[in-house]
């Protein structure tokens, strides 16, 4: 049978968590900054306090709206030739993170700022990997103007991959650009809605807060039915209770509150029941993504997602290590394996380290191999007459021929590839063979693989008219100023920290 799912809650405990989240939603609610979103929720049964911005969700409103959340959907690449299904029982693996630096062994510190060329290379690598199905704007192009990054990345996406793409739904203007550009690429809005190309990330701010930029962008993504990951990053002990049960109650309220909003915006809009929650390191106050507790939280979210019958997303391959060392290795496999065993349907963060702040293309290809191992683990042990193979045991054991073994048996040939995962990068040779091949460690072998992929990768041939339209659209985006964005979003928040460390400040509250 396949591996049993790891469970962290009993049935009763699951009910208790759900019930506590409902209490939180109906008695405390979620602070929602955008007036239009509060009005919409009020018109649909929420109780709204326009002074504190808190929106309280009655239980009946929650349960009613959760009914229309789809339990499966399919994501497509730019030309539609590649696609994969996300549902509540299978597992897909992808990237995602906020790397603003990239591994570079030539630099003294081993890293440097990432640039657009790195972003492109990461898209190409993911395009070529067997087990990683989707890339996202994760390797941050520091050399590109902040306000055009989404447009430039989409252009590179359509040129360099057959796989879908993910973008943060930060703001309505940028999100609308994404939809408009995707519509140009796929030949219209109708096609985009019918066969979604993009995954959006919508991160509620813990505890219990939906900032204006997020709801603005979320409204656009749900309007176009592009699957959106609702993933709070609650951190036990700092932005959530230190107790994992407390964190899960709070974060569950944040997710289902946002899910309710998505269905009011557009019933049937696909979402992921997501998490990137982890814990505070009590020595430094830093967040700890490589912690075992992150694995437990992720497992709790997987179980809650199944409770609501919504596909889940959680982090794997998470590590806090600053170098490509043993800590990096054990933390990434530990979090990856826990997420998979917990039954997370969309596991992310391949290729990242230092709590996803740094990317290494070498790790990306290693993660592809790790995912192969994890998938094999989840398949478990298949038991039937043929896999038991009494005949072959008898034949080999009683053979009169000298030195007979199972290697040259048809039974071995038939099953070796399904029973045994044959890793591409792990070294299992004898020392002399390993030495003869240059005594390379895993990182060197991974670098060779990266170089090989980049050398062989062929860009997509774009239709000339479509490319002209895209470039024209990008010119429009380039002509905007930062103030245009602020105006478009009606920014009301004090400030928001962006991945690059840039802060938008708005003092006109």
């Amino acid at each position: 049978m396949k591996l049993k799912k790891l469970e962290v809650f009993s049935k009763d405990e699951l009910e208790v968590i759900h019930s506590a989240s409902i209490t939180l939603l109906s008695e405390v609610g979620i602070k929602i900054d955008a007036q239009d979103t509060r009005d919409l929720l009020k018109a649909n049964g929420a109780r709204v306090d326009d002074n504190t911005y808190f929106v309280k969700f009655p239980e009946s409103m929650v349960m009613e709206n959760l009914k229309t959340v789809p339990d499966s959907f399919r994501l497509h690449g730019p030309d539609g030739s590649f696609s994969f299904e996300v549902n509540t029982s299978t597992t897909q693996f992808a990237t995602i993170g906020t790397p603003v630096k990239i591994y570079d062994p030539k630099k003294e510190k081993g890293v440097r700022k990432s640039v657009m060329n790195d972003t492109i290379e990461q898209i190409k690598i993911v395009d070529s990997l067997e087990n990683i199905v989707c890339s996202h704007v994760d390797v941050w192009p520091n050399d590109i103007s902040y306000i055009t990054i989404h447009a430039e990345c989409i252009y590179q996406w359509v040129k360099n991959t057959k796989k879908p793409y993910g973008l943060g739904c930060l703001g309505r203007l940028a999100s609308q650009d994404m939809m408009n550009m995707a519509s140009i690429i796929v030949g219209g809005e109708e096609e985009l809605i019918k066969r979604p190309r993009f995954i959006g990330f919508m991160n509620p701010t813990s505890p219990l807060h939906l900032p204006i930029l997020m709801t603005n962008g979320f409204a656009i993504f749900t309007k176009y039915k592009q699957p959106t990951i609702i993933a709070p990053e609650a951190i036990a002990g700092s932005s959530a209770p230190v107790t994992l049960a407390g964190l899960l109650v709070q974060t569950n309220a944040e997710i289902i509150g946002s899910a309710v909003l998505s269905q009011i915006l557009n019933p049937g809009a696909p979402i992921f029941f997501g998490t990137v929650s982890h814990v505070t390191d009590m020595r430094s106050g830093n967040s700890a993504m490589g912690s075992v507790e992150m694995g437990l939280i992720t497992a709790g979210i997987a179980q809650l997602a199944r409770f609501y019958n919504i596909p889940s997303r959680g982090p794997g391959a998470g590590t806090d290590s600053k170098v490509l060392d043993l800590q990096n290795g054990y933390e990434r496999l530990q979090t990856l394996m826990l997420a998979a065993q917990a039954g997370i349907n969309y596991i992310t963060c391949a290729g990242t380290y230092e709590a996803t702040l740094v990317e290494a293309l070498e790790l990306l290809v290693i993660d592809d191999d790790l995912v192969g191992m994890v998938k094999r683990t989840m398949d478990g042990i298949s038991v039937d007459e043929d896999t038991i193979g009494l005949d072959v045991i008898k034949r080999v054991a009683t053979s009169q021929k000298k030195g007979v073994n199972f290697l040259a048996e048809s039974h071995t040939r038939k099953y070796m590839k399904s029973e045994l995962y044959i890793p591409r990068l792990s070294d299992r040779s004898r020392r002399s063979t390993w030495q003869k091949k240059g005594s390379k460690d895993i990182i060197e072998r991974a670098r060779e693989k990266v170089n090989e992929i980049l050398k062989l990768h062929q860009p997509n041939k774009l239709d000339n008219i479509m490319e002209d339209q895209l470039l024209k659209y990008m010119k429009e985006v380039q002509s905007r100023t930062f103030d245009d964005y602020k105006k478009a979003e009606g920014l009301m928040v004090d400030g928001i920290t962006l991945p690059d460390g840039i802060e938008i400040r708005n003092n006109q509250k």
Partner: protein
Amino acid sequence: MSIREKIQEFVVEWDEEGLKNYCQRLLKNKEAKASELLKDIGAVMKFIGDQFEKEEIFLPELIGSAEVVKATIDDILDPAIRAAGEKKKSMGKVVIGTVESDVHSIGKDLVGSFLFSNGFEVYNLGVEVTADQFISKAEEVGADVIGLSSLLTMSMDFQKQVIEELKKRGLREKYKVIVGGAPTTEEWADQIGADAWADDSIEAVHKIKELLNKK
């Protein structure tokens, strides 16, 4: 489809009966000589060996193919060559076995398969082979190389005893001796006076080729 392509099809499919019947038919109808078929089979095994080294196929596929080929050579082609009075060309003759008090056979069998795939004539004596058995067989077939395998630290010493026995009989210079097996090392090979040491089966083939070029 050429004869070589047809042979390759049988070999890749592990169709021993098919390959034997096909070779027999060609010989009977005088469509090919046994020595020509042997050359084609050698080319097919080289192709399969290359695929294996490039990791396009795996061990069972290589060994399974080698077994099909070996059975065909032993049962059909060798007798035909002898009958026609032709001489068989090979890379060299190697007698291999696991030394006394050790019953581990897989590593040594892999070496045998790899040598065979590389065009050597292999005499695999099995496990718990005594010094006398190694030497008698080598004398009988006119071997070039004797390969001694051992998986146990406790059986390693028997590798030394084979070499001592060769010396005693004044035959040490007649044969190249290669040793291997998990607990053995290059230092051990030097210490007991072997000509070469190999860490795994692919290396064993390279080392034996080197030994014979030197010879």
